[in-house]
C-alpha cells in the first residue's frame, strides 16, 4: 500500500509518476533494494556520486525540482539558496526552497533526500537583467516574482517588489518560542546582525525581548515582572483585553513587537522608527498573565486616513475570530474619533479575506434591516468604512445595479443571506460599552 511515511522507493526515481508518492512504493519490485530513511547523505553512495559526477549535484540556485512536503506529497519547488552542512569539501548541501504553488511563507530549508533529483529541470537559468530595477537576476527568479505577483502583492509596484524579494528571500529565523507555543516562522525579519547565526529565538511572552538560548529566557523570566503589555488597558470583556502601547513611550517593546511581527508579515517594513505608531495588543488573560494573541498598529497621524497599518493574529491563535475582532476594533476606534478609515495597503492574502468578510457582514446586515433609501455616504458615516471600500464590496457582489436611469442597491434577503454565508462567520464581537478610550493627543 502506498505509505506516505516511508520514503523507501522515492530515491531511485526510475518510475515515471512523481506526483503521488503513495502509489509508487508498491510498484517498485524491479528496483534496487529499498533504502531506509536515514539522516541526510547516507543513501546509497553510488547513487549520490553518480549524480555528482553527472553534474546534477549540487543543485544550482534557481533549479526547479520536485520536493516532498510535510503532507508527504511531492510539490514543485524552486531552489532559492543553498548551504553546506559542514565545512568539509564532500559535505552535502541543504537547500532553501520555495513551493511554487504556495505563498513564500512556506519556504524552508530541506535536506537532499526530500528532493526528487530525477525531476530536475534542465533549463539553463541565465542571468538576465531585470529592466525595472536593473537588478541582475536569473530568468527563473524573474519568473518566480512574476508568479507571486498575482497573489497578494498587487499593490506593490514592480521595482519595490523585486527589491523586497531580493533581501528577504531567505528566512533567517526558522522557529521561535513565544509563551506556550513553538512556532515556525513565515518570513525573513531584519534582526540585528548579532542574531544572524541563529535559527531559533526565544521570546519573553510579555516584554517581547528575544534571546538565543532557552536558559537565557528562563533566567530572564526570573527577573521580568511584566505580566501584560506595557501601556494602558483600554478594553476588557471576559478574558479578552486590549492594550494601547505608545511607540514613543515604550520604544524597546515597540521594536521587539515589530521584529516579532515581521516574522509573520511579508510586506511590513521596519525602515522607520516606532515613535509615530500606536500598538493595540489583543490579549487573552488568565492567572499567568495577559497573553498576546494578536495586534494591530496604527499611525498617530495618518494623511491617507489609514486607521490601521499592520495587523497580525499569531499563528497558534488564527481561525478563532481574533483577526476579525481586531478589524472591528479598528473601526470602533475610528467611530470614536469621528473619522472614516481604511487599512493600509497592501493587504496580505489572509488579510484580504478577513477584511472582505468583515465589510460584507457589516454592510449586508445594514441593508437587510434598512428601510427606504440610503446613500453610500450614509453607510460610510454609520460604519466608519471608507466609501471606496463600500463601493468595491457592493459592486463585487453585484449589489449595485443601474436600472431605469439610476443606481439602485439590490437587497433581496435571499441573495444577501447567500453572500453572508459565503463570507464566513463573524469574529468575536466588540462590546463598545467596554471600550474606555480617548483618541490620541500629542503631548506638549
Amino acid at each position, binding site marked *: 500500500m502506498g505509505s506516505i511515511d516511508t520514503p523507501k522507493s522515492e530515491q531511485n526515481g526510475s518510475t515515471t509518476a512523481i506526483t503521488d508518492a503513495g502509489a509508487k512504493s508498491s510498484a517498485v519490485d524491479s528496483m534496487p533494494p529499498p533504502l531506509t530513511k536515514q539522516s541526510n547523505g547516507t543513501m546509497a553512495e553510488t547513487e549520490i556520486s553518480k549524480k555528482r559526477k553527472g553534474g546534477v549535484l549540487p543543485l544550482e540556485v534557481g533549479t526547479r525540482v520536485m520536493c516532498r512536503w510535510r503532507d508527504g506529497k511531492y510539490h514543485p519547488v524552486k531552489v532559492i539558496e543553498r548551504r553546506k552542512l559542514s565545512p568539509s569539501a564532500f559535505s552535502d548541501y541543504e537547500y532553501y526552497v520555495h513551493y511554487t504553488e504556495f505563498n513564500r*511563507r512556506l519556504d524552508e530549508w530541506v535536506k537532499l533526500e526530500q528532493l526528487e533529483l530525477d525531476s530536475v529541470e534542465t533549463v539553463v537559468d541565465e542571468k538576465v537583467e531585470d529592466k525595472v530595477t536593473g537588478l541582475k537576476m536569473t530568468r527563473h527568479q524573474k519568473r518566480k516574482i512574476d508568479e507571486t505577483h498575482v497573489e497578494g502583492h498587487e499593490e506593490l509596484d514592480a521595482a519595490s517588489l523585486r527589491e523586497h524579494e531580493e533581501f528577504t528571500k531567505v528566512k533567517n529565523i526558522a522557529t521561535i518560542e513565544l509563551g506556550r*507555543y513553538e512556532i*515556525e516562522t513565515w518570513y525573513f525579519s531584519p534582526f540585528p546582525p548579532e542574531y544572524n547565526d541563529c535559527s531559533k529565538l526565544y521570546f519573553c511572552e510579555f516584554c517581547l525581548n528575544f534571546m538565543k538560548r532557552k536558559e537565557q529566557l528562563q*533566567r530572564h523570566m526570573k527577573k521580568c515582572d511584566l505580566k501584560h503589555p506595557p501601556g494602558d488597558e483600554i478594553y476588557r470583556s471576559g478574558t479578552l483585553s486590549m492594550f494601547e502601547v505608545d511607540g514613543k513611550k515604550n520604544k524597546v517593546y515597540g521594536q521587539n513587537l515589530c521584529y516579532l511581527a515581521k516574522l509573520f508579515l511579508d510586506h511590513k517594513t521596519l525602515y522607520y522608527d516606532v515613535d509615530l505608531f500606536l500598538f493595540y495588543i489583543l490579549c487573552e488573560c488568565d492567572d499567568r498573565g495577559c497573553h498576546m494573541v494578536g495586534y494591530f498598529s496604527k499611525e498617530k497621524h495618518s494623511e491617507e486616513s489609514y486607521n490601521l497599518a499592520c495587523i497580525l493574529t499569531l499563528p497558534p491563535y488564527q481561525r478563532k475570530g481574533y483577526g476579525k475582532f481586531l478589524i472591528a476594533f479598528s473601526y470602533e476606534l475610528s467611530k470614536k474619533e469621528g473619522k472614516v478609515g481604511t487599512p493600509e495597503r497592501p493587504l496580505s*492574502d489572509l488579510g484580504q479575506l478577513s477584511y*472582505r468578510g468583515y465589510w460584507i457582514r457589516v454592510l449586508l446586515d445594514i441593508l437587510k434591516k434598512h428601510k427606504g433609501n440610503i*446613500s453610500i455616504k450614509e453607510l460610510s458615516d454609520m460604519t466608519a468604512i471608507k466609501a471606496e471600500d463600500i463601493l468595491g464590496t457592493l459592486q463585487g457582489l*453585484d449589489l449595485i445595479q443601474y436600472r431605469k436611469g439610476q443606481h439602485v*442597491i439590490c437587497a433581496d434577503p435571499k*441573495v444577501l443571506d447567500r453572500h453572508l454565508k459565503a463570507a464566513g462567520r463573524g469574529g468575536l464581537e466588540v462590546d463598545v460599552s467596554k471600550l474606555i478610550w480617548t483618541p490620541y493627543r500629542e503631548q506638549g
Partner: protein
Amino acid sequence: MSRLSFRPRPLDIHKKLPIVKSVKDFEDDDTPTASGTRGCQLLRLSAADSDFSVNNNTEVVQTPTKKLASEIPIPQFDAVDTYERDYSSTFVQPTSYVRGRGARAELGEFVEYDLDNEDEDWLQQFNQEKNLISPERFEIILFKFEVLDHKARERAGLITPTFGSPISVLLQLDAAFEVLQAQGIKLPVFQSVFYYWKQKRERWQKPILRRLQPPPPVNDTNPYNVFRPREKTHRLHTRRMQRRENNVQSFEKLRQVRRNLGQSKLILEELIKREERKREAMEIEVSLQRLQMKYKHETELVDDGFSIPGGYPAFSSKFGSSEEEFLDSDDVEIFHPRPAPIPRASAAAQMFADSNHPVMVPAGIPKQEFRRRIISNTTRWLHRMDPLDPVLLFTKPLVPEKLAAAGIIPPSNMPGAKSDAGEVKFHGRIGRGGRIVFDRWNPLSLSQINFDSSFNLPPKPQASMYN
C-alpha cells in the same frame, strides 16, 4: 428602451440610492449593462445564483487566486513542554483597567541586559566549576558597565543621535569599581569581567545593550538596518504641531504675516482705484465716439442744408432735435466734474467754453444764429479731433453718383411693401466689414427707412449704462 451605447453614470456617493428588496421590481431586463457597475473582483457566485443578471450576457469571471482561508496553508506550530514551569501563575488581574507605567528603562532598577551566547560561554569558561561569579551577578555588572559608560559619554558630549562612527568605551576600571564596590565582588574577578566587557565592546564597536545603540542614519539605504528616526520635516503632522507651539518664532512669523497682509491690502486698494480710472476713461471714449458718429452723420445733412439758405428752415426741426440731443444727457455727463483730468473730455469742454456756452445762452440771441454758431463750433470741434483717432468712415454717407459709377444701384421699391410715405428712397450705408447696405427698415425706430431718418436715437438717461 435599451440603447446599445448605454452607459451608467458614475455613482454619486452622496445620493440616496433606493434599496430594492425584490427582483420583481425590475421590468426592463434587456439592458446588457444592467448587470452592474462592478469595478473589482471579489467573491463570485455562479451565474445561476445571481437573480439579477437576468440575461446570459453576464460573464462570470472565476478568480482562481481567491481561495477560502482553509485552503491557504501556513507553517506549523507546536506546544512547549516546559511552559507551565517557566511561567508562574501569579498574575491577579486588577478590577479596574490596567494603567501603563513608563518604560522600565526610565525606572533604572530593572536589569535590561540579558546574557547572550558569548557571555554565557565565557562565563562557563571563567567559572570552571568554581562559581566565581553567578550568571545573575555577571549580568548585573555588565548592565551597569553599559549604563555608566553611557553616562560618561553623555557628560563628555559624545552621544550622537544616529549611528555614525564607531563608539568606543570611555569608562575606566577605577571609576567603575568605585561605583560597583557595593556589589561585593572581589577586585580580580571584577577586573576580569571588566576586561572581557571592554574587549567585547571593541569588537562590536557599539554598545552591547540594544537600547543604548543609536539608530541608523536616515540616509542609510541598507535594507537590513532598521528603525531609522524620522526627520521632523517628514512628519505628517508638522503643521498641527506648529500651531500648538507658542514661542518667539511663531510670534515673529505671525507678525510677518500681518505685515504681508497689510501690504496686500494697500496694493489691492490701489488696484481698485486704477481699474476705476480705466473704466471711466473707457466710458468717456465710448460717449465721445458716439457723439462723433452722430455728428459725422448729421454734419452731412447740415452741410447740405447750409449751402441752400432757403432750405434752411426745412431742417430746423432736425436741428432742434439735434440741439436738444446735443444739450442732452451727454452734456450733462461731460460737464459733470470728474475727480481726475480726462484729456479729451476736458478739451471738448474747453472748446465749448471757448465758444459761447450753449447752456448759458443769453436769451436775446436769435435761434438761427445760435444754431449756426453751434454748428460751426461743432464742425470746428470735429475737425479739431485728434488725428490719431479712428476716422469712422462708416459714418460717412454714401454718394449715390459714385455708387452708380461703380455699378451699384439702390434697389427700387418692392411691390406690396408697406409704404406710408410713397416712394422710399434708399440711401445706403457702409455696413459691417465694409459692405454696402441698403436698409428698408430702421431697427432703432422700428419704422420704415426714410432718407431723413436718423440712426441715432437720443440716449436714454440711464445711470445703469455706466455701471
